[in-house]
């Protein structure tokens, strides 16, 4: 874990960051639900191998933002470019873009009618047209990666929340995504299961995965993130390295949010 922390791009290597290719570019993105604006002119670029933690109070638009990156939500203004492909509503080839963007949900969303291994192989067989044997081999590799290979033949309902979330991570990894999105992956878990999921996410980060995580786990943000993005009211209020963000937050809203977090964790 510590080696990963040492490797990461810190504030000092901004030049180095700019020299790295862009994985996700979000430029002036706005979105409305009816007359209610959920995203206000959001601009954010994520470089390859970068790990971003997005935080903010509930209703700040952070989930909506990462759901726009694989177009589970559509944006109405601005540009989103993922791995060099610009996303447009109703575009062709959206499936190909999504195959390179893994997503992990708060509620796991495992397929309850399929065994763990079949959860992992479904998209390989159907979307990647892979033979079952080859798909199962990849599935087992990824289940080992999240340290849960012995549960391959069980069904999701037979697993604990933490195990289910690790399966969900393995399922996403099977597609060999270039980017992983995490939408509050530990918020639905019992406290004693949070660590096993964060550990998996940390080792994923250490392997160099490009990650965008919406999470309230500030310990994870501090240890793993290259950059913390704070959102409120649909806007990006502040983004900074974890050290900067936690020690010297610039904006009043950030300070208020952080002070509330620390009250809650006491």
């Amino acid at each position, binding site marked *: 874990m510590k080696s990963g922390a040492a490797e990461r791009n810190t504030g000092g290597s901004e030049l180095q960051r700019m020299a790295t290719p862009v994985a996700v570019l979000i430029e002036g993105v706005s979105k409305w639900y009816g007359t209610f604006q959920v995203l206000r002119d959001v601009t954010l670029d994520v470089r390859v191998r970068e790990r971003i933690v997005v935080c903010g109070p509930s209703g700040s638009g952070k989930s909506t933002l990462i759901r726009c990156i694989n177009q589970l939500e559509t944006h109405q203004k601005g540009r989103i470019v993922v791995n060099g492909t610009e996303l447009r509503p109703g575009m062709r080839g959206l499936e190909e873009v999504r195959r390179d963007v893994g*997503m992990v949900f708060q509620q796991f969303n495992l397929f309850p009618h399929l065994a763990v291994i079949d959860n992992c192989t*479904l998209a390989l067989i159907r979307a990647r047209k892979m033979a079952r044997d080859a798909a199962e081999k990849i599935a087992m590799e990824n289940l080992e990666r999240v340290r849960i290979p012995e549960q391959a033949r069980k069904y999701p309902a037979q697993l604990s929340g933490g195990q289910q979330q690790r399966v969900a991570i393995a399922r996403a990894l099977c597609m060999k995504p270039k980017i992983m999105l995490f939408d509050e992956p530990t918020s639905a878990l019992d406290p004693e299961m949070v660590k096993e999921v964060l550990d998996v996410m940390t080792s994923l980060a250490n392997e160099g995965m490009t990650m965008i995580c919406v999470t309230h786990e500030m310990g994870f943000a501090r240890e793993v993130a290259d950059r913390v993005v704070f959102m409120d009211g649909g806007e990006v209020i502040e983004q900074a390295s974890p050290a900067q963000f936690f020690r010297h937050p610039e904006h009043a809203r950030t300070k208020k949010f952080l002070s509330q977090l620390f009250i809650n964790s006491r």
Partner: protein
Amino acid sequence: MGALVNFDVAFAIRIAPLVLEGVGHTILVALLSFFAATIIGFFWEMLRRSYWLMRPITQFIIDAIRSTPLLVQIYFLFFVLPYYGVTLPALFVGVFGLSIYYSGYISEVFKAGIDAVPVGQSEAAQSLGLNSRDTVVFVIMPQMLRNIAAPLGSYLISILKSTPLLAVIAVPEMQGSAFDVAAETYRYAEPMFVTEVLFLILALIAVALVTGLERHLGLSTPFH
């Protein structure tokens, strides 16, 4: 009450085989109508979800089908259509009428069954890059099946119990056979009673089959 006082058990037993002659048609009509109604009902539901404009149109058709009596629909198909040069055989009209009528109800079963699958399921499938067809076939449908099994089974029973309506257009099912016996012997109590009993037996068999099938397919228990 007079008929009940004069109820002749020996006569009832003697005419039972005559009423039973209709059982083949009863079962045939019920099964054909059930399968057709299920397919048409599924078609309505897919149409309703296909395109925003199809939603009100399909809903109107479904509501119209459900808002008029089945008996009137059957009369219409059998006695009015011939005026416009469309003459259909009674058996066909019977199956067609029952299928269309119940397809309206069964489409609602599919709607509820699909709506009950959490939206996160299709989001997960999409995020893995599955196309919409594969999402429906491999993620939504297997979970929907579990939701619709029980209500669909009860519609099979409903359809079975609606087949006597077809006696009015002379489909030779059990109720029609019972009417024939009554017309020849001037006795109603026994043939009607025999029909009741035979329907009860058929319905109980159908319930047992449906429940057995649900259990066999593991549809009646929650996920593992």
